[in-house]
């Protein structure tokens, strides 16, 4: 195939794509073709480091001198020979420069894509501790992990997923710690994915988790390398996906929702207190609206007498029943929440004012809503923010509990709680019980539960993860 024919074939194969650049040049006496996609390579390096150097290349009996080719381009970018035309086209889509010369194909790695710099993730900011966050570039993300674990046992294996996107997925674990069965299962599940494209790591998460119909995700998603490294050291497996700043870790347990990276950088008593606050916060968030409706509609005798009088005074005159009132407030809150997340910061401020003053206060003053209902909703909303990871899930559960309480009061609420608890108890994440270390009780793992023990007492890795190496801390350096 001569260069002209090659040009036509490439143009036709890539459907006349405007960003496909085809440069016909000379290597010595031979015609050659450089092909790449605009915006994906370092053009200056191509011109000065490759094309100009190869222009004066000698030929051997009319053929290309491959040794010369390798010697003169390897300083600019890694060069490799490609076996066939189809593979050359695939390499081209990955952002390489493909050189066609003398019926041979070479890939030259001159990739230079615009990327975001490493910054602190906006959703995981901390007062104390590392502030580095992952970016969209897989190589950068993997290096952020590698530079923290300087050990040959850190294994990083890559797979390609997505028929069209050909996304690189890197699976990381420590071979001497992680359970081999879990690693094998992860690799098997990822390799069996048959999908057109992977846009974000959440795709992989949803495709490989055990129970896809559950409200709870059984795979954790992290934005910070320090958290991912800590989890890998515990015996978990991390999945880094090209194009996503979120790294997946698994197996995942519900208790992780109540843990934060900062918990490990401060005194354990303070951490225990904060974790209990988070638990109380989420119980408030989920149960308070439903409890309010149950007590108002059915079991008002449970309320303290003085409190009941206050509530009766506050709610008399409102046109809606407590159930409708609470559903209305809850939906308005969720709409405001959804709108404020996607608003620019300055508009978000205005939205908060509209939500808090215009909607809330005016509705109460106009007698459309009662102030206890707004107060309950506000408390519930604040409680929800204590565990932001599962906010969306708990929001749906809160609504379900509210509906159950509106139908059967406390009985409905208890039934809903039981079904919820039994459903999460039956969840597994890669063979690990979702509700461990509390159900099943794993006494050794309780040290990092709601009550956290000091770092000196954290001698073993989580037993629920079935790690190979169970000890994480010896008494002295030599131990």
């Amino acid at each position, binding site marked *: 195939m001569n260069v002209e024919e090659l040009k036509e074939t490439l143009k036709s194969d890539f459907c006349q794509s405007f960003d496909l650049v085809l440069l016909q040049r000379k290597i010595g006496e031979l015609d050659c073709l450089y092909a790449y996609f605009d915006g994906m390579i370092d053009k200056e390096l191509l011109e000065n480091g490759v094309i100009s150097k190869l222009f004066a290349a000698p030929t051997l009996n009319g053929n290309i001198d491959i040794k010369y080719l390798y010697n003169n381009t390897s300083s600019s970018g890694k060069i490799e020979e490609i076996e066939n035309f189809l593979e050359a086209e695939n390499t081209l889509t990955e952002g390489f420069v493909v050189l066609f010369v003398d019926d041979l194909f070479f890939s030259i790695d001159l990739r230079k894509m615009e990327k975001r710099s490493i910054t602190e993730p906006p959703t995981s900011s901390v007062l104390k501790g590392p502030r580095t966050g992952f970016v969209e570039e897989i190589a950068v993300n993997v290096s952020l992990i590698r530079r923290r674990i300087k050990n040959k046992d850190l294994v990083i294996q890559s797979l390609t997923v997505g028929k069209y996107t050909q996304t690189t997925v890197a699976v990381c674990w420590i071979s001497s710690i992680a359970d081999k069965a879990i690693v094998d299962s992860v690799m098997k599940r990822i390799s069996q994915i048959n999908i057109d494209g992977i846009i974000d790591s959440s795709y992989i998460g949803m495709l490989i988790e055990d129970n896809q119909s559950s409200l709870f995700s059984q795979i954790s998603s992290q934005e910070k390398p320090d958290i991912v490294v800590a989890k890998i050291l515990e015996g978990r497996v991390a999945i880094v996906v090209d194009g996503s700043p979120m790294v997946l870790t698994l197996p995942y347990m519900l208790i992780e929702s109540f843990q934060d990276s900062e918990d490990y950088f401060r005194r354990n008593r303070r951490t225990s207190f904060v974790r209990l606050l988070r638990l109380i916060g989420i119980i408030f968030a989920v149960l308070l609206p439903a409890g309010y409706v149950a007590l108002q509609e059915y079991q008002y005798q449970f309320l303290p007498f003085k409190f009941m009088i206050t509530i009766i005074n506050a709610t008399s005159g409102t046109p809606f029943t407590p159930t409708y009132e609470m559903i209305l407030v809850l939906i308005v809150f969720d709409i405001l929440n959804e709108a404020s997340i996607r608003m620019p910061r300055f508009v978000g401020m205005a939205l908060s004012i509209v939500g808090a003053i215009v909607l809330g206060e005016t509705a109460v003053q106009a007698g459309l809503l009662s102030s206890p209902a707004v107060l309950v909703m506000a408390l519930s909303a604040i409680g929800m923010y204590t565990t932001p990871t599962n906010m969306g899930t708990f929001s749906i559960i809160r609504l379900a509990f509210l509906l159950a309480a509106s139908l059967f009061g*406390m009985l409905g609420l208890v*039934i809903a709680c039981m079904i919820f608890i039994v459903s999460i108890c039956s969840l597994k994440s890669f063979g690990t019980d979702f509700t461990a270390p509390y*159900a099943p009780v794993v006494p050794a793992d309780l040290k990092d539960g709601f009550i956290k023990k000091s770092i000196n007492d954290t001698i073993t890795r989580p037993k629920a993860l079935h790690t190979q190496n169970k000890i994480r801390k010896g008494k002295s350096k030599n131990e």
Partner: protein
Amino acid sequence: MNRILTTKLDGKDTLRAPETAIILFLLMITFKTCNMPAVLYSAAEESGIWCIIIHAVLDAILTCVSLYVASLGGIQSKNIPKGVRKVAAALLLFFFLFKLSAFIYETTTSSSSVLFENSLIFPIFLAILISTAIIGSSGFTVIGRGSLIFGWLSIFMLVFNLFFVGFDGFGYNLFPALRFENVTKGLIKQAVWFGEPLILMTADLSKKYTKKQNALIGGAFAAASLVLIAFYLLLIYTYGNASKSVNNAFSRVLTMNKYSNELGAVDWPMIILWLIAALIHTSCLFSACKQCYVELVEVGKKGLTAKTIIFYILAIGLPLVFYFTVFDNVLYTTVLGSLPVGIITFALGYALPLVVAIAAFIKVKKIKKEEKLNEVTE
């Protein structure tokens, strides 16, 4: 999405011996807690405590026997002769259905009385029936683990309540309960609240536990019995004039009534705990029924779910229509237990595990003997 991707990891046995022991301990406490208002009423009467002690001892024996069957793989185990297995499954199913219909009725009427001032009977019944059937379908282990979480919550609740306990102890309250008279009558009357260890026969606990671990599991049940007897004694001792204030036993002992102006009608933590216990109990009975039913109709047949639903409607619905129309008493189970059908059912409950265990024991011994003979001939 390929189904293979979602299959769970094999070979991860997480139901360890200590966990089994904790779950069984909690379930035993749960089963008895949900009967507490009714049992207390009866226990305060003549010889009440002796009846409870005798039943607790019988329960402990039943536990050992049922655990033996469970350790062989439960009622579906191939270690039990096929004929015995089928008959035992049918009889156990009858036993559990009898209890199930009785407890759904009792939970419905009690909930209606405590929470809804005797209204909404049918919707409450439907809500309890459907929810416990759903929970029951998830199986023994999951229900056990769910009860572990409720166990944690209950501990928090009780610890919180301890700050507000107002004891009103009066040793004289124990006298009628300790008197050893009319024990047989009392035993028959209370039989309906015991016999739950039979549920264990439907569980598959065929793990290779060590002798020490088996002792731990058995010990957990024994501990639960002791805790219960002590708790009953404490309740009767503390609730003042037993015959008058029995209905308020919960609120008098473990709640904060003297702070009701500040904290509300504070017997609600105990009502909720009781409700949770009752629902777990009913769900366990559903789970046991399902295991027996599956053994009878053969697993894997098409339309099993539909058949099971129709079966439940007939088997539970019909007795309940009878209960709702004939009885009008929350504490009706004592009446039911004293009827001939009740006496036969509960006698069956005590005899059945022994028969199954003996049959299984003989078969296991025979299998072992054959294995030894084969080894010798080889």
